[in-house]
Structure formats: C-alpha cells, structure tokens
C-alpha cells in the first residue's frame, strides 16, 4: 500500500496562530515524506521548545519533544542508535541559534545523517515576542523597546564556513519549493541544514510574507550558480544578505557514522549485546 498524506496526519487541534508560517513547513514536511514513500514508523521528529517545536505533535510519526536547545544532541543519539530511522530535528531560530548554538556548530562539522529544519521567524514566538538571534538590527520588541542593537547571526554563512555538506533555505510561503528542499535534505547522506523562513504573523510585523515575497530570490535564477562551489555559495549569500532560497551548497561524502568503527548498520536494538560470562570476567580483571 503506498503511503498517503493521511498516514502522516493527526487529529490534534493546532495551537498555532492562523497564518503562522509553521503550517507551511508542516505541510511541506508531510508532503515530502509522502513523496519519499517513508512509512510513519521509519521517521522520527526531534523537536525543540518554541511554537515551532510543536511541529512533532501535528505529524504522525515518532516524536521526541526535547528541552530547549537540545534537539541536535538528542537527534544525534537517536540516529547513532538506529541508523535505519529518518531523523529530522526541528525547532526555531531561538532554539537552534541561541541556546542551541553550541550544539549547532558541532553538528555542522560532525556530519551525522540528520536533517535539521529550522523555522526561522526572527523572533521568540512562544514567549510572546522577544528579540531572537536572527532578528535584524533595529528590530523593536518587548525586550528591545528602543531597537535591537545587536547584529543577527547568519546561519547560512556559519554553515558554509563550518563544513556543512548540505545547506539550503526555503520559505513557508513557497511550499512546493520547500517540499523539494526537504526531500533533497533527507536524501543527502550527512547533516543537512534547511533554514525555513517561517513568518510569525503575531509578533513580527516587519519580516512578513510580503517582505519576503518582495526580496527573496531563488538560486536557480542566478546566472551560472553552482551549488558545489562553496566559495561562490558564500559570496552569493553575503551579496544577497541571506535572502536566497534553494540548495545553496551540497557536497557528497560519507557521514560521521559511515566512518566510525563500531556503528554497525543494524540498529542497536537488533544487535547481539550479550556478553559471555568469561568475557565479562576478563573485562573485570582489567580493573582489578
């Protein structure tokens, strides 16, 4: 029986505000998984804390709702324990690029086969509208009443500089493109960053759908764009102030777990972890 959209749906009533960008991301994720014909039991979402972190509640597959900023270490552990699972880490820009930044940097270079879907709305939605690490300078919020004096984190530039093998950006107002990006990210062997621009219609009245529709460009429309050329990708991202969508960079190669002895192909739960008594005694003897 082919997998259908209904298989990934839940009856959970959505908590998100009407028009929230996260609906677009959820829809793209569900459709991408159907296109890839993944069964719900083959997929696990590891979600952070935030409005975006609720995404796991609205999709029928395994879901771990972790603590704030800890999506990537939990997703890493899960993937290493069961390589057969398609592991998707998901959360907001606060979850990933503020409290979770230490994990993000190392996940980029470690290259475990995880797809990381960041719903980037340039604001803290769940806590009712404070400045976030991707907020633009000058952005007025409850926590920055006279305007943000900091400069934003640039996740695409960071990912390109840190050796990430798949860097993409999508927009929840362009669901068909986002579906293709998620499919490519899931199929990529290694860590895949998909920064999904996902407007918050309640607490960010600057970075709106119209704001992005007027400014975003698709890399396919840039003459001669080559997503395998990292230096050119970095240059393009800087020149366009991060307002590019599509697969910005991809590099094929083995993932972390492909290279490490001990991470056998079969899931840990299916491995024979039984230890013979004499081997156990030998092990103990080493510590005596």
């Amino acid at each position, binding site marked *: 029986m082919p997998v259908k959209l*209904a298989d990934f*749906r*839940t*009856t959970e*009533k*959505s908590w998100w*505000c*009407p*028009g929230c*960008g996260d*609906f*677009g991301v*959820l*829809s793209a994720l569900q459709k991408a998984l159907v296109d890839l014909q993944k069964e719900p039991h083959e997929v696990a979402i590891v979600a952070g804390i935030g409005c975006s972190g609720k995404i796991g509640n*609205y999709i029928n597959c395994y879901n771990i709702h972790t603590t704030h900023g800890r999506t990537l270490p939990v997703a890493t552990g899960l993937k290493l324990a069961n390589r057969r699972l398609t592991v998707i880490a998901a959360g907001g820009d606060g979850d990933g690029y503020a409290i979770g930044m230490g994990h993000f940097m190392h996940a980029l270079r470690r290259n475990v086969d995880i797809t990381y879907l960041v719903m980037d709305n340039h604001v803290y939605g769940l806590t009712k509208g404070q400045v976030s690490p991707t907020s633009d300078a000058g952005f007025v919020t409850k926590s920055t009443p006279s305007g943000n004096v900091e400069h934003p984190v640039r996740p695409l530039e960071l990912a390109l500089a840190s050796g990430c093998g798949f860097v993409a950006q999508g927009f*929840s*107002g*362009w*669901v068909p493109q986002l579906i293709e990006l998620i499919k490519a990210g899931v199929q990529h062997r290694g860590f895949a960053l998909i920064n999904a621009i996902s407007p918050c*219609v*309640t*607490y960010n009245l600057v970075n709106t*759908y119209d704001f992005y529709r007027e400014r975003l460009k698709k890399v396919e429309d840039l003459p001669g764009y080559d997503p395998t050329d990292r230096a050119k990708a970095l240059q393009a991202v800087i020149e366009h102030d991060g307002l590019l969508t599509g697969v910005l960079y991809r590099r094929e190669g083995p993932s972390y777990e492909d290279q490490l002895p001990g991470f056998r192909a079969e899931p840990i739960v299916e491995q024979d972890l039984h230890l013979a008594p004499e081997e156990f005694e030998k092990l103990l003897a080493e510590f005596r």
Partner: protein
Amino acid sequence: MTPGDGEALCHPEVLARLASLLPLPEPRAPGAKREPLPEGRPVQAAAEALAIVEALLAQREYPRIVERHGLRFVCYLADEWEWGSPPLVHVQAWDGEMWRDLAEVAGRLAP
C-alpha cells in the same frame, strides 16, 4: 483547492455569518450625525462577504490572508491543517498589539 471548498464557503449561511461580522456601514466619525441604517446594508454586506471569500480562494500560495474593513481573514481549505475539518475562515481584529480571533467561520460541507 477543490470545488467543494468554494461551495462550502459560498454557502448562504456561511456568507450571512461573515456578513454579520463586517463593520458596515463604516463606523461614524466622532461627533458625526447618526444616519438611519441604509436599506441596502444586508445586501452590501453579503456582496462584500462573497468578495472576501473569492479573494481568499483566489490565492494560490500559503497563507490565504485578506485584510478588509480593518479585519483580517485567514482561510484554511478542507483538511488542509486539521484532518476531517471543513474549510475555515478565521476573522480577526487588531487589538492594538496583535491580531486576535473574533470568530471562526466554518464552511458547510455537502452532506
């Protein structure tokens, strides 16, 4: 979008409910003379409700949002976000800080 979405949202009861939420005629300016309610108000409001539904359904990309008469209308098609749900229009008003739901108007699916 399916033809069913259009039918469900253009159902007379749905349009009547939407029309009842529209602030028509436009609010009086402070101190202005009170005019008798124009005879044509229900007709005007019903036509405006239909125009809003058509504008929502004409949008091809997520999200379907239209702003008219100081209100925001956000539309989800049947089954778009909630399994088994009819198409839905959130009618929202600006409270000075954010858009808040005044009402949720659900489309009428054919039995």
